[in-house]
């Protein structure tokens, strides 16, 4: 494979990594541009992490700050776990993009603008009284002002492309320029453009021309005295794909069906940021997956529960507001002791809150948000690719213990992506369970019966007898029922027994999950105890701090209820326990209550993930 940069006199300067943010109008194709830069870097062998940043759900007028759509990608020659705290490079296709994202840029960072979009009109739309290029607001940054639109016109004109069509190619010019700047292989992208726009050759040609124009512009202008290169990262050998959390989660559900050897029925009502899971799963009917877009969240959960009663893996996907509506149905599933996988892609709350922004404040609801004593297991994914494993684990628990399980992800994991080493599917766990096929109780007179609440002494799970099985007809419901026979039973002792039994069943799952392991190479006094999407920022912060010689330990919970049985031991071992959460300290309160240790919350509720810098500061502060 040849590389444009190599052919050049100007040798690229090697970097360990760079964070590039593509920003433009919703219509400017920034997501596809970022995606492409990501893929080519992935294929090239860099480690990477991405974070798309959409405007809020409603469309905003073009050219305005509210209409800005961005895509941030962090590529590196070593192991990374976040899309980067602050971009080193900002590609701004218009003044609004500059205005929206400038504050994020690292001091002295590089700004590449499309100068053709800085007309009076554009500036006013963006809310600029003066041209930021002239009024000194860009002082302290390296600014490269490129007439991208005009250069795209001239590059595509020979092909007979009309200017207004050419407009749509200018993002490829930007991609070309950045590809040159970071010495990305050109051919793969050219080939990709060909396939992607195969349906319309003129568009394909136009995009290719714009892309090459960008590359050539980089080569020839003196604006940059040389390109850069980021070597491939040392990653475990294997086949990789770049995956977002929602895709990984959907695939995990498909995989769970295969591994359990059961059909999947998804009941879902669309809601940001969970809708994509419904979209993805609806593409995989050939796996026996049925997707049902219900009339509301209650019906979504209800239909999934009905499917579970009928012998399917019942799944329902939603976000916070939806879980608030499903509580009564989940409580029914707890009482009937049927499997139900409830997936909550958390977003900013309360109420409608910040639909497109991330938060992790649904934990309290997941653990406590139903009437009566309604215990259920809660599993949390910690990275985009981990959503795949988390979906399988949550399903395993649900069908083995005949219980609803809440799986927590969030907007950051849902839309963020990272390279994922594709697992050897033969190594994935067998999570199959068996249905009841015959009577499980013998009366004194020797006659036999099916008792729907006669439990497995090991798991305390009740049998799962599905309709269609001769001889096992039975009735279940939400009224308290007698242990064993499962008949309606209001008696005090039985209710007390059942309440404790349901609690014991869920608590007992702790025996069936791995111990939490602590990363503590050099015997620290401080433990950072995390859960969910804070993992990436915690990893990065800890790596940085250790390089600076700070001792700090890290443990991360995938099972947030029940906990690994060694958690108490772990937290008691440390002088200081810090718990970063994208909420006001929800898990922290649970840990304090259980172990009476003075765990300290580190909270962020700004609709954004933690930056590693924020966590480093918090840890150093605590280390004082």
């Amino acid at each position, binding site marked *: 494979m040849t590389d444009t940069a190599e052919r050049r006199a100007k040798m690229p300067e090697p970097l360990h990594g760079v964070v590039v943010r593509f920003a433009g109008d919703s219509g400017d194709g920034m997501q596809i541009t970022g995606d492409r830069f990501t*893929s080519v870097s*992935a294929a090239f*062998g860099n480690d990477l992490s991405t974070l798309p940043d959409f405007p809020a759900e409603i469309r905003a007028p073009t050219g305005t700050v509210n209409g800005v759509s961005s895509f941030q990608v962090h590529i590196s020659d070593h192991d990374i776990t976040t899309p980067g705290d602050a971009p080193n490079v900002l590609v701004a296709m218009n003044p609004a993009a500059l205005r929206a994202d400038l504050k994020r840029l690292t001091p002295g960072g590089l700004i590449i603008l499309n100068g053709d979009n800085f007309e009076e009109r554009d500036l006013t739309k963006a809310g600029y009284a003066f041209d930021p290029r002239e009024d000194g607001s860009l002082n302290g940054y390296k600014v490269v002002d490129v007439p991208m639109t005009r250069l795209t016109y001239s590059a595509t004109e020979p092909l007979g492309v009309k200017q207004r069509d050419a407009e749509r190619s200018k993002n490829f010019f930007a991609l070309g320029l950045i590809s040159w700047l970071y010495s990305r292989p050109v051919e793969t992208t050219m080939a990709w453009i060909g396939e992607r726009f195969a349906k319309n050759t003129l568009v394909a040609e136009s995009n290719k021309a714009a892309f090459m124009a960008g590359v050539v512009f980089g080569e020839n202008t003196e604006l940059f005295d040389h390109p850069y290169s980021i070597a*491939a990262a040392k*990653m*475990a*050998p294997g*086949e*990789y*794909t*770049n*995956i977002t959390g929602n895709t990984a989660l959907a*695939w995990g559900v*498909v*995989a769970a069906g*295969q591994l359990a050897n059961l059909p999947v*029925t998804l009941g879902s009502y669309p809601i940001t940021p969970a809708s994509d899971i419904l979209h993805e799963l609806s593409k*995989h*009917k*050939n*796996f026996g*997956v*049925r997707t*049902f877009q*219900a*009339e509301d969240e*209650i*019906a979504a959960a*209800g*239909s*999934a*529960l*009905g*499917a*579970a*009663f*009928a*012998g*399917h893996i*019942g799944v329902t996907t939603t976000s916070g507001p939806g879980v608030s509506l499903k509580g*009564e*149905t989940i409580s*029914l599933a707890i009482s009937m002791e049927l499997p139900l996988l409830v997936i909550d892609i958390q977003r900013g709350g309360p109420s409608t809150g910040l639909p497109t922004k991330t938060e992790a404040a649904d934990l309290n609801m997941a653990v406590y948000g139903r009437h009566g004593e309604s215990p259920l297991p809660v599993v949390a994914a910690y990275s985009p690719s981990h959503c795949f494993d988390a979906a399988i684990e949550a399903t395993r628990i649900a069908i083995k213990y005949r219980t609803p399980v809440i799986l927590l992800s969030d907007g950051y994991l849902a839309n963020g992506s990272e390279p994922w*080493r*594709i*697992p050897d*599917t033969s190594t994935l766990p067998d999570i199959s369970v068996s249905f009841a096929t015959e009577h499980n109780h013998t009366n004194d007179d020797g006659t036999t019966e099916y008792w729907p609440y006669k439990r497995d002494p090991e798991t305390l799970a009740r049998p799962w007898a599905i*309709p*269609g*099985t*001769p001889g*096992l*007809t*039975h*009735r279940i*419901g*939400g*009224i308290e029922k007698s242990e064993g026979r499962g*008949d*309606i039973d209001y008696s005090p002792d039985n209710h007390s027994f059942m309440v404790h039994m349901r609690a014991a069943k869920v608590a007992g799952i702790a025996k069936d999950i791995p111990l939490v392991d602590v990363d503590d190479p050099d015997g620290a006094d401080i433990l950072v105890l995390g859960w969910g999407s804070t993992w990436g920022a915690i990893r990065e912060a800890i790596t940085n701090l250790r390089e600076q010689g700070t001792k700090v330990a890290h443990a991360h919970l995938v099972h947030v209820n029940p906990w690994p049985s060694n958690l108490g031991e772990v937290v008691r071992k440390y002088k200081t326990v810090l718990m970063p959460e994208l909420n006001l300290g929800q898990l922290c309160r649970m840990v304090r209550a259980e172990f009476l240790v003075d765990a300290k919350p580190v909270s962020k509720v700004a609709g954004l993930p933690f930056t590693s810098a924020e966590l480093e500061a918090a840890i150093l502060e605590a280390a004082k």
Partner: protein
Amino acid sequence: MSDTIVPLTTKKDWTSDQEVRWCPGCGDYGILLAVQMLMPDLGVAPHNTVFVSGIGCSSRFPYYMNTYGMHSIHGRAPAIATGVAIARPDLDVWVITGDGDALSIGGNHLIHALRRNVNLTILLFNNRIYGLTKGQFSPTSELGKVTKSTPMGSVDPPFNPLAVALGAEASFVARTHDLDRKHMMETFRAAHDHKGASFVEIYQNCNVFNDAAFDGVTGKQSRPSNMINLVHGQPIRFGPENERGVTMGSDGQLRLVDVADVGEDALLVHDAHRSDPSLAFALARLSHDDHSPTPFGIFRSVDRPEYASSVAAQVVQAAEKKGPGDLDALLRSNGTWFVA
């Protein structure tokens, strides 16, 4: 999963060991009996039958049937049953619900199940009252009704359950009552045999909190003059001597007439199979009170695609088009690269 040999069953095979717990004299007993007596004739097996109910006196029904059953939560039975049907089109799924369960808290799930035409047989026990919670008015209670929650009389005008169902695209709509076992059995059989969502309103007497609610129509003395029996393809006639009938005017208004005045040929001929639900709707609106001529029987029964089978068909079709799911291929479907 379900065996195909249908055993010959008797009423006993359909009766569970649970003690029936309704108030003495409750209309629910008669309905239960009608269903238990009908089941053996349907050529289905108890273990391939599922009864799903919500909450209410009526919703205790599944406990008394020796089938698979779920006594779920208030108003949600149609949604839960939809999940059962989607997962298992091979099963016979019945929904048992009350006027509060189906039309108050459960209204949305009911109309959507009907719209989708999910293969459910829905029996609505309409006693025009909240029985289980001891006597508040329901969405089918008459205006001005004095109940525990309306000491000065209810200001809520009632729904007409059949009109709601027809407005929601129901493909099968019928009405029967708890005093006529034969009519109930005929109606339930037709509802069961209909492929798609069948909606049956059953006038049911709650002798404790709303006694004699339907006497003006189904009572011994009112019956002859106030019960109109709908028969597909037949002119609509009623009355002690069958002397009265129904006509449709060119102004689009149904009228009750003396057959003698207009002649047999002028009478409206019932057409339950018409795709346009307007006629069924007009018949459902024929009576506006509890003591005037009221149609019973099958108002509407038309074929349209059944939901669960459509869902299943896409699964098959997808497998045919893409081949059975291949997990390894799926995980590689977004493009991959190798690290050596």
